[in-house]
């Protein structure tokens, strides 16, 4: 009986949450650009090379209910072999260099690399220290840099929109 009432219970109404007008408009423009450049969708593989985990939280947030970027054709994937874009966070450490290069090699062409966060863009306060190789572009060709400590979801979307707009159809 308990199980039955559980199954028959009317689902509760959940309030709709919106990310804000700036995010929405960036998302809709991005949707069109993704259609133009990649044909319907892009898949992103995230690689943490020395981040403090704040940028990871924001990237993961993009798939959360408030933002829900899948409606704009953006998905995060588990394997680099399924990815169009590598989103690299953090200053590149000696420990992560090899893993980053292998992930890059495993990603099929055409591919983009975006550096997410101040440390990934410039090395930040870690630039020139013993434990790091510097920003992502010291190790890989980088197509887009999104600064911020960490960048907000809106900043990440606007950054990607800029990248797509400047790209020819593949």
């Amino acid at each position, binding site marked *: 009986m308990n199980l039955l009432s559980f199954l028959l219970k009317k689902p509760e109404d959940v309030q709709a949450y919106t990310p804000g007008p700036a995010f929405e408009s960036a998302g809709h423009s991005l949707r069109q650009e993704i259609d133009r450049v990649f044909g319907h969708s892009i898949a992103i593989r995230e690689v943490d090379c020395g981040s403090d985990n*704040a940028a990871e939280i924001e990237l*993961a947030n993009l798939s959360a209910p408030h933002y829900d970027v899948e409606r704009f054709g953006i998905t995060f994937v*588990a394997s680099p072999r399924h990815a169009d874009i590598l989103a690299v966070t953090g200053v590149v450490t000696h*420990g992560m260099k090899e893993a980053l290069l292998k992930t890059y090699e495993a990603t099929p062409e055409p591919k983009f690399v975006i550096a997410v966060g101040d440390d990934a863009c410039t090395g930040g306060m870690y630039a020139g220290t013993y434990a790091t190789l510097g920003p992502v572009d010291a190790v890989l060709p980088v197509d887009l840099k999104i600064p911020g400590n960490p960048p907000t979801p809106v900043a990440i979307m606007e950054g990607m929109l800029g990248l797509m707009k400047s790209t020819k159809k593949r």
Partner: protein
Amino acid sequence: MTGIHAHYSALSLPAEWLIGEDGTTITYAVPDDRIAAIAETLLALESRLVWIFCTEEREENSYTLWYVFELAEMRKYLVLVLSTSHPVSLVEIYPAASRFERAISDGFGLQFSGSPDTRRLFLHEAYPCGFHPMKKSVKNVPIVPSQHTDPYEFRSMEGTSVYQVPVGPVHAGIIEPGHFRFSVIGEDILNLEIRLGYLHRGIEKLAEGCSPEKGVRIAESVSGDESVANACCYAMAVEQILSLSIPVRAVYLRGLLLELERSWSLLSDLAGMVTDVAFSTAASRFTILREMLQRACERLTGSRFLKGIIVIGGVSHDIPDDVLMEVKDTVMRVRVELEKIQSWAISVPSVIDRFSTTGVVREPLIDPLALSGPIARASGRALDVRCDHPYGLYDTYPVSPLIRMTGDVMGRFALKGDEVLSSLSYVNELVTQIPKGPVQTEYEVRDGYALAAVESPRGRTLCFVRIADGSIDRFALSTASFCNWMALEHAVLGNIVPDFPVINKSMNLSYAGTDL
């Protein structure tokens, strides 16, 4: 009676060894041949070794080791200081010592005699043999990666039908890097060895020579989801050195920020746990609440991760009362929602099936491994820095630790949910009582050293700072994750590989906060 004797008359530490006592610690200088014997006595008194760190002195090749002990019912930490370049290992007395000693060997090149595990910890193969970055003689400049360092050796597990499952450093989700080496029979985990260090950014070395103000930003960058806890712990250590008391309003605001951070950070854990048992509806609901809190954080400080607000001497700017009231409203809405979602999630049969009896951390492991935070509390031990070593606002408004007895994923899930609820109530109550006044004190930097402790969302955070000639001479930070990773290695034993993600998420330890 001063020093330790006021608390433990059984412990014979001569009064002339006492070198200092402040609000957080009682410090004794101990001859290097006596440490093992004293450690044995301390063990008999049911103490826990919670940290060992090293400092280099001005005379060349002169090192000091600092052993930090926590004794039951004692508000201050007992710190034993030892000058030696040939230390003995305490692993046989306190197993938690192993990884601290390996970190010191990496950093300073000291070898601990009698240590069963002398492998490197945070230095990977790219670092040449004989490279010890924490030595003062080593400059903080880029190195030439080594091609010849011997590869790291994992513990080998042998036997019929034992096979290895290597995972990482790049994982399937959007998470931090680390390597997990499973030895498995069928689906049962026989052994797990965790190798970290991928995120080693040289933070402790980076802080050396910086101004004490800059140190706050460095401490904040250790781990994004506990940035206030780490920044606060560092700032408290410096304030201890300067004998600085911060304005009452700043004490309240720091308390507010610490509890907000605990709430949103633990909400991620709740969402992660239900995601890993494929219950995405509940995960979405938890994530919505976390986003509401992160937006409240942004409203308060301009940063969704509460970065930049903690400064030495208080907080960087005042928060207007109307913003505080707005945040109070959000907090209450989140609390009401969370109560509903939490009890719903925990009543779903498939969740109970996956959570119960999975990944048990047994209570007897807590002391030897120096576990802390929700992991210790979910296994029946009321360990909480806020209660055991009260600081800041918790001195005025105490919190009582919540515990669960089962030690499994279900225990941690229920406990973390309750902790968020209690943090949100705490925020709600204190907002209305924040007194008016300044939020920052002027100060002048002076030399000295101090240790501070804070309860971060993951447990005990300790920070040691030594200022010499007006700038940071040594910055050392130990987050809860450093010791708590050991709990994961034990909790998975006998479980099946497919349950690993949910066990891992139920602890949700910080890789960045371990590797520094």
